[in-house]
């Protein structure tokens, strides 16, 4: 019972905070403290979202495609590299510091380069998403592989398991929680990465829409597209969580630590 009321409280608190911020925002714009053309009211934002809905959806679809393709490619690359680094310690020593350095290069600085190299199509956007999503997943997986109990590996070795069997039965499952934490972070970067790269050139996408409405000083539409980006990002993270729950069904039983659910000897 206690758990349930805690659960409700955990949902109510952020909802309350969110409502409060909306209220303050509305008060600021409605009272005219901040002029309406600079800070549209929440209501203006929502109505802009619905007025321009079909157009926004066309652009969103492009951004979502870039984000998802980029994320998928990023994850595949990360998986390949993490496996290789786990297998060959030398590779990890050589490559990991380089990877860390690349993470300090701001996305916004590489984006124009990518556009110059690859043109105005989807390619530079997807590439940028790959670059931003690759790292959290790779590092998560690498940490996951290291989290494996060496005794579990010894057990498998005593059964004369091959390196691949040890990988498949012990290392991969143990690294899944780390992988999914990384993937969640990456999913939140993916949409933002796509949008930022669209700012710098292109014909479609939420980033392109954003630059257009900015030039027209359409603040309500500006806010509407920000809201849409937030929603899309949250949905993508939610999707990751759904996949995570499906991929690790055994975690459901972890929480029953009070003993009442256990069978006795």
């Amino acid at each position, binding site marked *: 019972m206690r758990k349930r009321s805690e659960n409700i409280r955990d949902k109510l608190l952020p909802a309350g905070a969110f409502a409060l911020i909306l209220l303050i925002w509305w008060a600021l714009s409605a009272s005219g403290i901040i002029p309406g053309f600079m800070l549209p009211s929440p209501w203006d934002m929502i109505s802009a979202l619905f007025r321009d809905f079909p157009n926004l959806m066309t652009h969103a679809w492009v951004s979502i495609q870039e984000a998802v393709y980029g994320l998928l490619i990023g994850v595949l690359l990360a998986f390949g590299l993490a496996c290789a680094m786990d297998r060959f310690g030398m590779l990890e020593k050589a490559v990991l510091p380089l990877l860390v350095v690349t993470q300090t290069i701001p996305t916004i600085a590489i984006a124009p380069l990518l556009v110059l190299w690859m043109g105005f199509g989807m390619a530079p956007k997807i590439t940028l998403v790959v670059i931003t999503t690759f790292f959290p997943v790779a590092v998560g997986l690498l940490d996951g592989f290291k989290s494996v109990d060496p005794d579990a590996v010894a*057990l498998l070795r*005593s059964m004369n398991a091959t390196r691949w069997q040890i990988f498949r039965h*012990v290392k991969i499952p143990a690294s899944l929680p780390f992988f999914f934490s990384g993937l969640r972070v990456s999913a939140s970067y993916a949409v933002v990465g796509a949008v930022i790269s669209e700012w710098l050139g292109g014909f479609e996408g939420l980033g392109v829409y954003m630059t257009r409405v900015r030039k027209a000083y359409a603040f309500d539409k500006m806010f509407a597209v920000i809201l849409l980006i937030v929603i899309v990002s949250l949905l993508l993270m939610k999707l990751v969580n759904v996949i995570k729950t499906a991929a690790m069904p055994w975690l459901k039983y*972890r929480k029953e630590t009070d003993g009442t659910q256990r069978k006795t000897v």
Partner: protein
Amino acid sequence: MELLRTENISKSYSGRMILRDISMHLEKGELVSLLGLSGSGKTTLLNILSGLIRPDTGSVYLSGAEITGQPGHISYMLQKDLLLEHKRVIDNVALPLIIRGMKKEEARKRAEPCFRDFDLEGTQTLYPSQLSGGMRQRAALLRTYLGSQGVILLDEPFSALDMITREQLHAWYLDIMSRMGFSTVLITHDVDEAIQLSDRIYLLTGSPGEIHHEIRVDCPRNTRQDFNLLPEFAAYKRQIRDILQEAMRTSNAAG
């Protein structure tokens, strides 16, 4: 019939000798204990028997064939149960069969009838985190049994359990050993446990660890249940305690 034999096994780690000249053997159907104080090299010896590590010198034979440094011949239960939390119990216990290349369905079919023997009926589709301590131990023992070709190595399998559960498992283990007809090398630092379960006890003493004493425990399996309440049990206990104390005195005097 002799199943397992070691000849003059020695092992050093970074110049420090851990085991010296260990020669021991295991007969078919026997339970033999390696009894030694903490840090005497018991786990190291089992790692060598299982083929996980190579001895510096000496050899291990299984049914006459040399298997020194070759894993996969002798089934080994390490100091923890090491059930994989992401696999259901049936897939955990069938793991050694799958590692050997058996198809998953076939391995499950092989494992299935053993659940009754190991008192695990109904746990097949549960995850390890849903089992009690005693059940986890029996599941790990079943996995070890399914991977075995007659010889099982156990590294302190009962030490983490409470006294009642442990005594129940002791009786159960001797029974299942006789029924399924396998043989066991058991590591323990618990003198009572060694006497209660063993047909023979090797005392691993000193540093480096050596075997100077072998004690045969004369008590048929079917009267083992209350063995620890008999005077003979106390006599064995006294004998072993004296040897261990003497060994400690000499090693203290030497060091």
